[in-house]
């Protein structure tokens, strides 16, 4: 039971935003302190149970310890210290970096294979489907995955929900503004790719729909994580 307390303390410190190494060190040092308090009480002739009770009382509850750690910004990890930046701006940067890296790889790869791609005979509708699938990956799967990952991370760190939600909204809008065109196998220039950013009255309805789709896809894991946390809290209370 005593060991469980310090494992729980470590988990609670992490959830409160303390750095991984800080939480591990704090739990380990406080546990060591606990054992010395118990040893001291035993040496005085106190019974083992009473010695443990005294030591726990001297340390105070995990809740208070966590609150005291969390009240010191210098002990918090960057995401907990700057949640607005970390869960709204950083995901956008990650998405752009991921897209640029994959796009560059794809363009370089397609450039190398352009001669070969001219000779591939793919039915036009299959070719269009391939190009569409690549666009869906870039404009749907990538932004939704990145936003969802940051959302779940924020949830685990007990970051106020508004930041990941704002992050998801920003990501959905950015992804909807980006236009990507791929022609991988079909058309007059197979192996071509292009990207741009912008909005027009003509494309606004489609872009709005795309933003909503990405937003809902990204919010789903966040909603599941929140639902599970609520259920677990309910179980603990029972």
């Amino acid at each position, binding site marked *: 039971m005593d060991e469980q307390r310090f494992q729980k303390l470590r988990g609670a410190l992490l959830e409160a935003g303390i750095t991984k190494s800080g939480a591990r060190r704090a739990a380990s040092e406080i546990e060591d302190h606990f054992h010395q308090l118990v040893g001291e009480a035993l040496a005085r002739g106190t019974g083992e149970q009473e010695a443990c009770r005294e030591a726990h009382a*001297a*340390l105070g509850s995990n809740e208070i310890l966590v609150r005291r750690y969390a009240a010191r910004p210098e002990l918090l990890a960057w995401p907990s210290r700057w949640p607005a930046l970390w869960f709204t701006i950083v995901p956008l940067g990650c998405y752009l970096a991921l897209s640029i890296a994959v796009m560059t790889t794809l363009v370089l790869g397609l450039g190398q294979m352009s001669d070969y791609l001219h000779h591939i005979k793919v039915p036009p509708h299959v070719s269009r489907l391939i190009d569409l699938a690549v666009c869906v990956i870039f404009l749907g799967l990538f932004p939704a995955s990145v936003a969802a990952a940051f959302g779940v991370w924020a949830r685990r760190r007990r970051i106020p929900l508004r930041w990941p939600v704002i992050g998801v909204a920003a990501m959905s809008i950015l992804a909807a503004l980006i236009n990507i065109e791929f022609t991988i196998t079909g058309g007059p220039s197979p192996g071509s790719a292009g990207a741009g950013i912008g909005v027009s009255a003509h494309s606004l309805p489609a872009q709005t729909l795309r933003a909503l789709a990405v937003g809902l896809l990204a919010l789903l894991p966040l909603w599941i994580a929140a639902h599970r946390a609520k259920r677990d809290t309910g179980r603990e209370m029972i």
Partner: protein
Amino acid sequence: MTDKNPSLMAGVPELVVLRLLADRDMYGYELARAIKALTRDALSIGEGVLYPALHSMEARGLVRPRSRLADGRMRIYYSLTARGKNRLARLTESWRRVSGGVESILGSTAHG
């Protein structure tokens, strides 16, 4: 830094810990015992305050942790850094000024 007029008790754990570490390296439990013993229980900085304060001081570069084997266990000993020494000097001066001021008032009202 609000050294000119620090709130009376807020800086005490930091001042006391820095002062003790100025004499020799100590680990958490030793610090807690030393504070109790030296102040004859007048000042009790609970473990729940001591560790967050120690780790905060470490994060601000005032103390440096070092793992050391003692009594067959690995323990984290804390030592004062140069920045910690400067901070100790400033806190000591502030504390003396405040306590001197309070003493003056107590002395004058006792006579009055």
